[in-house]
């Protein structure tokens, strides 16, 4: 069963442990600026939203790559950037409508979430289970349940 990252902003405290884990895994340094996952903070609402590549089926980045440097990892479903092939043309960075593949000027390559070969460091580091790595189907089920609860609540108040 393929897994995917499941993100629950309601549980996120904005601690950035995910960014620390991600950047260390990829850059060998604690450097939130180079993290592939990013926490958006909406301070006037007291809301924190973890945000990263959803490994979407459309994979605009992968299709747009002119040199075949982004491929599908069939095991994890992740779209992987191959540094030896990437020429740094940045076309993927404008093609991805989520803004989750980004150019790293230090290396001249693009960077994106690769699901850490099936063991995402961000999920391991999250202290509140705001980021979990679960069966892809199960995340759908949870979403449906949450939606059903909303519907119920609507009926109760009606």
């Amino acid at each position, binding site marked *: 069963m393929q897994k995917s990252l499941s993100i629950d*902003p309601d549980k996120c405290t904005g601690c950035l442990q995910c960014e620390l884990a991600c950047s260390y895994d990829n850059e060998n340094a604690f450097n939130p600026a180079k993290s592939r996952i990013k926490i958006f903070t*909406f301070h006037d609402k007291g809301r924190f939203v973890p945000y990263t590549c959803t490994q979407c089926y459309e994979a605009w980045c992968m299709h747009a790559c*002119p*040199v075949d440097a982004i491929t599908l990892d069939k095991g994890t479903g992740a779209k992987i950037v191959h540094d030896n*092939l990437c020429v*740094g043309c940045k076309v993927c*960075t404008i093609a991805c*409508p*989520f803004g989750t593949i*980004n150019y790293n000027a230090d290396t001249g390559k693009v960077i994106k979430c690769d699901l850490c070969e099936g063991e995402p460091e961000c999920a391991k580091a999250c202290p509140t289970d705001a980021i979990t790595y679960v069966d892809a189907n199960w995340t759908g089920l949870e979403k449906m349940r949450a939606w059903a609860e909303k519907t119920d609540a609507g009926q109760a108040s009606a």
Partner: protein
Amino acid sequence: MTYVIIGAGPAGVTAADTLRKADPKADIVMIGSEPEPPYSRMAIPYVLTGLIAEEGTYLRKEEGHYDKNAIQYRQGEAESIDPKNKVVKLKGTDDQPYSKLLIATGASPVKPPIDGLDLKGVHHCWTLEDCRNIMKFADKGADVVLMGAGFIGCIIMEALAERGVNLTVVEALDRMVPRMMNEAAGNMVKAWCEKQNVNVHTSTKVTKLEASKDPEDTLVVDLDNGKQIPAHLVVVATGVKSNIDFVDGAGLKTDQGILVDECMRTSVDDIYAAGDCAQGPDFSTGGWAVHAVQPTAVDHGRIAGLNMAGKSAPFKGSLNMNVLDTVGLISASFGKWDGIEGGDHAEVIDTENFKYMRLEFDGDKIIGALSLGRTDQIGVLRGLIQTEIALGPWKERLMENPHLIADAYVACSQQ
């Protein structure tokens, strides 16, 4: 069923791969006119800089990709199409019959009517062969004149600059990248390039090229401002046009390119078109446009492939967008970056640090954007425009600080 694709660029290859997935048993024939395996023109500048070898430009890196997927790759140049008998006539070789045809012949550079453009040492930078020729001349310290500072010209400029040539850019219009940038941004790019020791002449035309014997095998480029510039190499990047001449007589409706509907169908049954030669639906205007950029080519190819295989996949239209690296200054433009009448815009200019961001609104939706000096999360501009997100209170915040695009996108789409 035989699918035939004329053209082996990104649109053609994407269509071939899409067709193979959608219709595992059909015959697929892809016809390319160049000797190399299908490659990406976009990657040529990186061959020029030495970052990659020619193989690095190949569109598919997997060993035996086309054979493995039973995509027959044929060398040949299409001469004409006979829709009645469903064949493509090829120059100097057997006709190619088709059940369904995709025209993905791309575009070619145009040569302006200027004397001397046929001289030795004058090249386009369009094919791998051009690339090899340029590399012969463009050594460190060589004098190089680049005609045209449009999108393609600027991509080449980056590579030439990196080779360490003494570079002069001549652009007829009043600013650099005029079709991608407004005056403020275009001037900023010019100032940046000049800072990187590139000589830039805007509002300037090349009037004539002459061979020079001092030194041997060089050129002199005459400008309409009276100046004469010596050159070991002149690179012509003054625009491209769709490769559609060969379809004359086939009955296809054309304009700038071959007109196609939202399923990439031409006006003739069983003939489709995609990529730089196709004039398809434009997301921003609701009209038809040639968007000669990589993401549009692959979108076209994918949509065409699906529809040819009988899967209904209507296209919402391509978004005009570009990303450009001019000697280290990275810029991007999306959609209607020049705005619409009566629409609001947000703009911040930081001349000192070469940062610029402009957003164009229609009501509380973003319809276009232009940015310089920023790469982080730049793709959300596509998301904001193409999903037509109603920004609500975020419009006001973006008007104050347009750099909050990612925050706005996440806030509006994830809450």
